[in-house]
């Protein structure tokens, strides 16, 4: 079993670390230089100030290097994003309906639940729509979210690689009970999921591993 809930989590966390890493270096560099100048060129030391109007090459350097850095950030962010956009045609499809203030999951065989059940190591494709105002379907542990909008079908894709129960939150403000619009996605072993899916009731699966 994988150490992260989906492979995509690793790639998002990498992009995050990459951007934050460069940012911390820049922030500390800027701050340290500024504080150093304030001490070194303090008026108490009695230096004559020198008027330097600028330097073409310096301007070029601090445009060029940040350009390369931000383009690399864009590139990593984009390639990681692609992972969740190329949805395999054979993915396990579930329809998600949002309304104030709950999510309902409708499976292709007619089953319907309030909590999302999915089998491990299987690509899952959510086709989401709202019955009323805007909502958003957010699985923090999987690092994914997408808005859920009335009269529009938005797609979300993930491939769970670790058993467990993961929170699902509504992330687009939707009124009074927005902060209570929580549900969960439960990732089950393949066999147990199949057993549950085969029974034509909406009963909650009785699975010991899932807390």
């Amino acid at each position: 079993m994988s150490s992260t809930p989906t492979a995509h989590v690793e790639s998002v966390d990498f992009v995050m670390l990459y951007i934050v890493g460069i940012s911390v270096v820049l922030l500390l560099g800027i701050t340290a230089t500024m504080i150093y100048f304030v001490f070194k060129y303090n008026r108490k030391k009695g230096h004559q100030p020198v008027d330097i109007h600028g330097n073409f090459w310096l301007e070029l350097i601090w445009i060029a290097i940040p350009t390369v850095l931000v383009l690399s950030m864009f590139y990593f962010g984009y390639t990681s994003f692609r992972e969740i956009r190329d949805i395999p045609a054979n993915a396990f499809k579930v329809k998600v309906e949002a309304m104030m203030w709950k999510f309902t999951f409708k499976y292709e065989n007619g089953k319907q639940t309030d909590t999302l059940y999915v089998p491990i190591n299987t690509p899952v494709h959510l086709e989401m729509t709202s019955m009323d105002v805007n909502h958003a379907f957010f699985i923090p542990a999987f690092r994914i979210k997408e808005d859920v909008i009335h009269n529009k079908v938005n797609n979300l894709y993930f491939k769970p690689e670790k058993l467990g129960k993961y929170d699902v939150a509504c992330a687009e403000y939707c009124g009074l009970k927005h902060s209570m619009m929580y549900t969960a996605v439960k990732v089950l072993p393949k066999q147990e999921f199949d057993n549950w899916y085969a029974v034509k009731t909406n009963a909650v699966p009785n699975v010991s591993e899932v807390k």
Partner: protein
Amino acid sequence: MANGNTVAENFYHQSTNKHKGILSWLLTVDHKRIGLMYLISVLTFFVVGIIIGLLMRLELIAPGKQLMEAQTYNSLFTLHGVIMIFLFIIPGLPAVFGNFFLPIQIGARDVAFPRLNLLSWYVYVVGAILALVSLFLPGGPIDTGWTFYVPYSVRSTTNVSLAIFAAFILGFSSILTGINFVTTTHRLRAPGMSFFKMPLFVWATYATAWIQIIATPVVGITILLVMIERAFGVGIFDPALGGDPILFQHLFWIYSHPAVYIMILPAMGVVSEIIPTFSRRTIFGYRAIAMSSLAIAFVGYLVWAHHMFTSGMSDTARWIFSLLTFIVALPSGVKVFNWVATMYKGSIDPKPPFLWVMNFIFLFSIGGLTGLVLGSLATDIHVHDTYFVVAHFHYVMFGGTGTIFFAALHYWFPKMFGRMYNDKLARIAVALYFIGFNMLYFPKFILGYMGMPRRYYDYLPQFEPLQRISTVGSWILAGTIFLIIGYLFHALVKGKKATSNPWGGVTLEWHIPSPPPLENFKEIPTVTHEPYDFSQLKEMKNE
């Protein structure tokens, strides 16, 4: 007012009309008096916004209900946003300090349209009153969030129409100020003051004025459409009526993203004034800084949909807006590098205004750099609409513009009021502000990455420790701001008299008395120096 016991020739004693007392202020066309009227109104609403923020933080000190119901909380975060954005940050720097100092810095006696200037203050007040009235009418205060997203804003039974109409009115105040500043900058510069001799605060305010003129009508139209939809059930944005809610988001952000630059550009201009004055040397990269303001104003129009990466837009739109968002980061970086380079080989006297600017550079850099996390698609999808975004825009707006509001107040206070404030208290305030600010907002970055969505009345138990730290931070920060307001008020009455040039600045406002006389200059100056040429200081002593 400030110089009540002397018969000084200054604008507090010289009126533009025949009235006395309060009427001489309410009917004034003097840009300095109008600037001060804005200062009082803007500060009042700032304090209201702070109190609402404190109440929200108090509610969030622990999970579950603390002191209010969910509906109240939802109205409070909406009001906090509306007040802070439309009534404090957007008018804050341009309408207060732009009004007071833009004409002086270019050597003019007033703005190009003094009566229009007064009108825009009245329009602001009318908008603010309408917003206040909407709180107390039946239906209750608006609960949509300051973004007014449809369909919720069409369906909410609260007083949405009146509140957004208030924002519509406030937009006109902003447009009128913008028109005035563009015309003033083009037509009223003193002889010799070419565009590239203008102080950088003028450049920044000028770039801002163009955004105010061009972008604000878009939000005005959008608001009218929402009102029509609510009143007559015409399907424009609400999908239940056949409208498109994503269209609303596009139109809203076509204004509201450039509005972010309306908020930050004038602050950047103030920084470019303060650093040379306290380093006593010319600014590094004058043209680069001036041009980067224009670049930000221009590219800033083309990045709005980065607020909508999870809305279900096409993947093509997503990558294009992601790329453009990274590009708009570059001119801001150019400014920061040039500011730090301006300290190189200077003669630095870190007086309170300079310390505020150092505070700004640190906080704004965090705000800007975390913007890169939001510009990148994969990471934005995760942190979009979470506390990470809340932390990011508070670092940019409050850590950036809010901090510079205090920097500008400390820098120009002696000029505006003719008094000095307590230097030691001001230094303590900078330090406390730094601690309180980071305690209040930094934990929100972590909370956001952990998956805490924004606009939540209640939260899961794992978020409690960081929420608690944040609430304690809010007490320190608010306490500091009240301390600042306190010692500045004290200085108004009891402060030492200020000389005409307490910091050794060289832009035109430091050539005239503190406070300035009506119409600023006895004789319109002829400008021969560059804006930050400190060799003038010797001649200025003899003035």
